[in-house]
């Protein structure tokens, strides 16, 4: 009952170039660049993707909640229901559920939305776990204390960078996983699985490097808007941030990650 449906890349000129570069052994930065260009249509298509904007909205609201008197109540108003003795898996499940419920009610499911959800949950777990004394049996306020730290400008910048790095890497893999393994085997681009894995790791690193551009921008944006909007951030502002941050990531990947980010 568990079958999986796989797709393949379209045969347009731009995607053929991506495949040609993979075959020819091009560097990850060039392949990432070509991929982003080939995927331009897709990114234009989903400029207002509800799954993506909802994930960014939730990310900003988690940070806003951190400065509210009652963090739990604010989260609840966003559909994030946390029990008193919240653990990290609880937080991950609650954020997933909040996004699922939101998109379920407005029919907004999409591939980018799915990837955004994965990216947000993954980024939160990665960001918060080092701040916890224990993953499963934190004290009653440990997760909440870790969440409260998100209200700091620098913390939001870091979380945002991790989110966009993960989302970009997911997106790259979303496209490239439709072709990478077809170049596996003796005499091909990837003679072994090890080589393919190294390529994927390099791509991940490349996306992380490219995401540096979002970190400071996110921190500044968050600080400015929270001040200007009286301690809150509107949905409209968040949507603008989502689309501009994604554009910055795309532009950075088109340029190739900067050497000084390494």
């Amino acid at each position, binding site marked *: *009952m*568990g*079958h*999986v449906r*796989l*797709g*393949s890349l*379209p045969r347009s000129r731009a995607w053929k170039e991506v495949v*040609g*570069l993979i075959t020819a*052994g*091009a*560097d990850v930065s*060039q392949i990432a*660049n*070509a991929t982003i260009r080939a*995927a331009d*249509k*897709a990114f234009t*298509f*989903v400029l207002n993707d509800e799954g993506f904007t909802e994930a960014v909205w939730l990310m900003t609201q988690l940070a806003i909640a951190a400065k509210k008197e009652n963090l739990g109540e604010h989260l609840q108003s966003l559909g994030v229901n946390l029990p008193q003795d919240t*653990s*990290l*898996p609880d937080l*991950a*499940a609650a954020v997933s*559920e909040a996004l*699922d419920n939101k998109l*379920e009610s407005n*029919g907004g*499911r*999409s*591939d980018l939305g799915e990837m955004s*959800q*994965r*990216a947000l949950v*993954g980024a939160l*777990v990665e960001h918060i*776990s080092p701040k916890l004394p224990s993953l*499963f*049996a934190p004290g009653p306020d440990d997760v909440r204390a870790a969440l409260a730290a998100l209200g700091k400008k620098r913390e939001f910048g870091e979380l945002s960078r991790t989110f966009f790095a993960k989302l970009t890497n*997911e997106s*790259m893999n*979303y496209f490239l996983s439709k*072709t*990478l*393994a*077809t170049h*596996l*085997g*003796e005499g*091909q681009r*990837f*003679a*072994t*699985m*090890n080589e393919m*894995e190294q390529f994927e790791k*390099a791509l991940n690193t490349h996306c992380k490097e490219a995401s540096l551009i979002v970190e400071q921008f996110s921190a500044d944006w968050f600080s400015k808007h929270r001040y200007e909007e009286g301690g809150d951030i509107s949905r409209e502002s968040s949507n603008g941030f989502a689309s501009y941050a994604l554009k910055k990531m795309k532009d950075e990947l088109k340029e*190739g990650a900067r050497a000084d980010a390494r």
Partner: protein
Amino acid sequence: MQDKRYIICGNAPTDGIEENPDRDLRLRLWGKDGPDKITLRIEDIHKKMSKDVPDSFQDLLEIATYVYSADQAIPRGADDVDSFGHGWRRDLHFIIPVRKPDFWNGDDIHQALRSTLGFLSDDNYHFEFVKLKEAQAFQGYLDFNDDGRLLGYPEQVVMFSGGLDSLAGAIDEVLNEKHRVVLVTHKSTPKLNKRHRRLEKMIADKAGENAPLHIGVRVNKNKGLNYEYTQRSRSFLYVSIGATIAKMLNLKSVRFYENGVISLNLPVCAQVVGGRATRTTHPRVIRGFQEIISLVAGEPFTIENPYIWKTKAGVIEVITKAGCQDMIAASTTCTHTWEMTNHHTHCGTCSQCIDRRFAMIAAKADQHDPVEDYKADIFTQSRSKDEDKIMAAAYLERANQVRDQDDITQFIARFSEVSRVFRYLNGNPGSVAQKVYDLYKRHAKEVCEAMDTMVARNITAIRQRTLPGDCLLRTVYESGSVISVPAIPVEQKQPDNYFRKRGGVWAARFNGNAEVLVTGVDKGAEYINFLLARPNKETSVYEIVCGLAINTCNTFLNSDETEDGFQVTQGVPLGDTGFVADRKAIEQYREAAHDLLREIEDARAENNAAEIQRLEEEMAKVTTAINEAVGLGGKLRKSNDKRKNIRDAFRNAVNRAITYLEKYDKPLAAHLKESIKCGNEPVYRTEEEIVWEVRPIVNE
């Protein structure tokens, strides 16, 4: 998401709907045969069981049949990345006549249906329930096959697909636990009937007096209603039938047996998002089914998956420990049923076949699962289809990734999809997370051990390279062998500036930046390479173009064809072939035209039609000749200026290559734009000297 599609069921009215027969779908469970007719048959039901089935369960069966049929009849869109899979998800609006519309239009059941089915199939569901005008008898669905007696009352309804997991479940229930059970099988394709019957007989033979009761279910419909093979909503129909049968038996639960790895079905790779990995028995779906059936029953009803914490290898151990190894070969796991033949019962390449092969080897039971039954051997054969290559590599790679993780946090961050199950399994999210992590670690270990076993078995063939170079064993084994090419080449000091051919590909690097591979603009790259090799040296464009053409193609061209090129290399510029016609010739054409005009007038006077036609044809030729020879303002045209063509071709090729480079290395493109001058004598000239490495690299 696709545009809204209406599915108008039975005799439901369509008031207020702007019907579009090309887009909307009509389905009927009742009435005369026709293209929109579907039939649901539940076989081998005992008459006593059919009594007292509430209306709401009859409605449930019909709703599930309509949902399942629409799922197959309305195709998903192309799986294109250009729209982030926009076409995959459908917007389905059902209008269904039911016996109890007030119940079905209630908020709770409505929301439960939308939420569960939406998550299950990745589509958007909307339901409008209307009053069924002429209620049909429930018995219409049933095929009675007894004398009206029911021998003993079963204790449990078990969904039996004929795969390994449900087989192990049946063995556990019937042979180990000695329960009296009803096995419910959905007969999705006639190809499986024979295998199901064989398996059922084998279980019955071992069970003796405790032989389980079997109930088969068929949904038949016109071929025109079979477009989409994914059938994500199949388990809803399946569980609705199981629950109805349970209700008939006065039972309050149904059991699915599915191993946890398949049940949770974490995406094997990044392109598998949402419902592209089936969620047939995903814990959230199971919980949703339970909620729906409980609402329909008006009392708590449970849907269980007792194997949620088992891997497939663990499931196989249940079968072997019970001494039922002989049943393994009769079970069917493959999802590509259309590839099934008498000789090959499994395709060997779909996600389920791959999982089965690995699990069999991990459980040391593969001697009971003949490899000949598989159309392709995933370990030792090439796979021609891209999808098959991707699937096998992704499956193995995920196992490698999980194996390498020694921290549950990493696992959740990497496979964050897993957070969707934490609240739908018994226990607090923390302990559930730990169990999921342990399950996947166990599975990864089994996959890696199975791989090691297969490498060991085939080591001679691997060493002797008699196996195909892209088979799974070779690509995995050679990853760790000393002959493997390192994934990241050992860093050698490369020149800061190069523009050269490496193997069959042009590679460029400028100012120590990242290397750019140049594909699709070979000619321009070749010209640039030529110019960079001769800085400040003006060279005739004809020499470059024709000389390179000769170098490249001299084996194909004869001396006549390259004559112009040879002339150039000797310093004689290429010329055109002169004017099409000179002034004198044109004057003669004009005189001829005047003569023809006079002759035409004479012929008209004589009314000689044939002569008129001949003269007019001749006049047309003369006029064409004049037009070809004289341009605007009476200027003479030249026949074909080869020099201009060559100059243009050169410039265009260089510009195309620079435009290509601009995408990946703007400084390089800008430098070339600024430094290369085209025209009759192209040259690469810079203010500051740059040393370019231009020699090709061969036999690297």
